[in-house]
């Protein structure tokens, strides 16, 4: 198997890396380093340590690769490791309080993943996200990045953040509303 072949799935590469193929793990790094750097830059808004944090994410991924269940998708699994690393980095920097109590996961919320209006709105929202992401608090910023920029599904986001599906739905809605409000207040520059 040539690990560099573009048709080889991430999961197949992970299985090879679980064996002894460091080359397959190298291809996984190639595939994910850009995405994770982009995710980290949006999430942490501080370019100084992002490379180090992402490098740490790959090291943890390598150490834990044998715990990956190859019957599931690799992408949410590595994003989960990255999420933990970025949250820890935020806490370390004390730049933004990361709440230990998440009220959105206390009660059940209905999930509306296939909301048609939301889907048609996605392109417009993506432009809005690019312009106003910095104004959002971390709790909404991350979920907005995962959905609109990383284009992950509700289920994948729920698995990354380890929250119920309904929480993803309600948090995304609140994030969108917060973003729209923030953009309304933002002065229009010439």
């Amino acid at each position, binding site marked *: 198997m040539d690990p560099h072949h573009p048709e080889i799935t991430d999961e197949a590469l992970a299985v090879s890396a679980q064996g002894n193929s460091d080359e397959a793990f190298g291809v996984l*790094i190639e595939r994910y*380093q850009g995405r994770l750097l982009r995710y980290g830059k949006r999430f942490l808004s501080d370019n100084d340590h992002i490379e180090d944090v992402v*490098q740490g994410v790959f090291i943890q991924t*390598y*150490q834990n*690769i044998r*715990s990956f269940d190859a019957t599931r998708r690799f992408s949410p699994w590595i994003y989960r490791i990255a999420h933990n690393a970025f949250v820890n980095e935020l806490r370390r920097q004390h730049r933004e309080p990361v709440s230990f109590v998440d009220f959105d996961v*206390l009660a*059940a919320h209905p999930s509306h993943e296939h909301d048609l209006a939301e889907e048609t709105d996605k392109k417009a929202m993506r432009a809005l996200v690019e312009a106003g992401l910095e104004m959002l608090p971390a709790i909404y910023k991350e979920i907005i990045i995962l959905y609109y920029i990383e284009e992950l599904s509700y289920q994948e986001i729920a698995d990354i953040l380890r929250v*119920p599906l309904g929480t993803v739905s309600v948090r995304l809605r609140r994030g969108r509303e917060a973003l729209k409000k923030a953009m309304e207040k933002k002065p229009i520059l010439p």
Partner: protein
Amino acid sequence: MPQEPDIKTKVLEKIGRGEVRRRPRAYFIAQVVMVIALLAVALALSVFVLSFVIFSVHESGELFLLGFGQQGIATFFVLFPWVALAFDIVLFVAIEWLIRRFKFGYRIPIIRALFGILLFALVGGIIIDLTPLHGALLDKADQNELPIVGEWYEGINESHAGQGVFRGTVTSIQGDDFAISHDDGDNDADDGTWTIVAPLGFDMASIAVGDDVYVAGSVAQGTVQSYGVQRL
């Protein structure tokens, strides 16, 4: 255009130098087994503690306080085994935290998960309360043969004179008064003899010498002005 940082080379170099290694599959299996074992212990303990709370409330006679009016209800809450219940609540939170490590766990909203754990512990607690387990442990505690939780059990059959609650055996009856004595052989504060002034309207024919009774009232100089009496 700035070149993308070469994370791949750095990571692969560390791997090549042996600074970073894959953890063996057994490590992760051991981790899961440990979490499952902790979960099982915490669940069993929470069921046991809740069953103790249920057993303690009915065995001590504190349930009768609920039928003794407002004063009785207030005393019920004072005497309730809050420490055991608080310990159980800590266990519930620990169980919730442990099940959140599994996919089925974090998919359930916290309130629903906690409610499920409480229901499980409650049903389990009621079932255990129906078995002779706590009765046998109480006997062991009475004989000072129960370590760790022995004090919890010893507290069940104690009088709580400070809170105005007495347990004892009727030794004599005179008109609307009767005498009780309590002696569990340990010569501590709950042993003694009291004269009980029965509450208004109490049917004195419902008790006889030799009966064990549960009395709530205020004590002064060995005489209890009772607001509730119940034969055990």
